[in-house]
């Protein structure tokens, strides 16, 4: 959990993924399209990946990846991100966290 929090606070937009996860690929694409450059951490390539996954599940992220943090705060999984994007909140959050400027 600490590692997750630690990594999440390091950049305005942080996404925890797995290299084999295609939904993660979709969310990454969405962020890029919005002009954000999120920090990507692949759990399957991290030594404490399993603990991190467990921690993410503990936050209520199901499936555990992709797990999105904006401004250090946990936003949610793919479903939450899409919902927030549709109602315009995602862009606002990114702007607030200075991940994007317009």
């Amino acid at each position, binding site marked *: 959990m600490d590692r997750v929090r630690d990594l999440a606070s390091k950049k305005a937009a942080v996404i925890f993924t797995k290299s084999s996860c*295609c*939904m993660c*690929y*979709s969310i990454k*694409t*969405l962020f890029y*399209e919005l002009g954000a450059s999120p920090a990507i951490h692949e759990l399957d390539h991290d030594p404490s990946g399993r603990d991190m996954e467990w921690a993410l599940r503990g936050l209520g992220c199901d499936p555990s990846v992709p797990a999105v943090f904006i401004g250090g705060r946990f936003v949610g999984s793919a479903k939450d991100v*899409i919902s927030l994007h549709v*109602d*315009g909140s995602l862009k606002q959050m990114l702007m607030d966290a200075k991940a994007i400027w317009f």
Partner: protein
Amino acid sequence: MGGRTARTGVKDEKKAAKGMWSFDSQFQVTNTLCIKGSTIHSFPVSDFGIFNQSVGFRIEDAATLSGNAVFNSAKASGQAVSPDCNHIGTLDKTPTSFAINRSATQVESRLPLEKVQQTNLVSISSGYTENWGESNMADASPKTDISTDADTDEKSQRSDRGKLNAVVASDSSDRSKGSLDQKTLRRLAQNREAARKSRLRKKAYVQQLESSRLKLTQLEQELQRARQQGIFISSAGDQSHAMGGNGAMAFDVEYARWLEEQNRLINELRTGVNSHAGDAELRIIVDSVLVHYDEIFRLKSNAAKADVFHLLSGMWKTPAERCFLWLGGFRSSELLKLLVSQLEPLTEQQLVGISNLQQSSQQAEDALSQGMEALQQSLSETLSTGSLGSSGSSGNVANYMGQMAMAMGKLGTLEGFIRQADNLRQQTLQQMHRILTTRQSARALLAIHDYFSRLRALSSLWLARPRE
């Protein structure tokens, strides 16, 4: 009249038509009695006898047939048959025919009938079968030009006449000329009875057919209803495949039911909009439509667990809809593009909101599409890697199984994509509702429904198009 069976040739039948009398089926028993009472007795015996022998047909037969047919002599000989029924008593229905009340002279004048041979009669009668088949009736009318009355009773009674004629024909030789004696009376009565029984049998048969037909319709309806309730009714009785096919079929059934309900709700909405209902009332209906949309997304979510490929295939939609299929459903961004023009006038804020919504849904759709592409690529890579050589068989098997396991895992993520696509659709509808006023939302929902209805109608037309 005349030979109704295959055995009698056309020639015979023509002769028969000329000679034979046909009777109006409506003719009542009472009439014959009246006839008997008022007219037949008045015939001079000799005349009657001549008539008998030459025609091979008895007046009493005619009478006995309980008004079986129409006197066809008019057609045969070109003479008019006067329907002077009042003399006859209670001829209640088609009075066009029976004119036995006329004097014997009239009867005699119809003696072109004498052409009819006894043998002809016999052959006709013996060949005659009692049935009410359509073919029989079809045979009857054109060939012999009998009664204008298409009553099938007539035909059945003709069968009786057939039997009757057989009896009569065999008898004719020893019959005395004073024919209206007890024997005749008895025969008349027997024939009447036979005819009556025949009619009753036919009636019973027809009723049985009708009730069977009704039952069949009811059973079909029950079956349909049971199918709609998701009960798996396998026509082949193969229950082992029940679970496999059930997911797809169950969803199809649920979707059909959802569509019906959707139609109903939309009609309600349309009525509300057209009748300029108040905002509060409209909001209730609009909310119910949106809740109903939530329902289909829920159903699709369940179906994705059971059979994701069925949803992806779009086979649960009509062909034209399938044309626009994206990740198992419609594209929200496209829908919004269609709506903007129909929703005017929009406020500045609304225009901005709708435009942003369109852009957001487009971006999300692109993201999901790219994710799907990545999945496809990953899947093909998984299935295509592996040694083509035959060395190290155990290693190959392990590889193969490993690959399959990985591929299975990737396939499993398809469900997630469908779910997110539906999530996108649902969120787009909700956001649209937030941006628009109640009335605008109502019109938007109507427009969406009408668009898809037209696509479905187009599909029907397409499927029914004439092909060379």
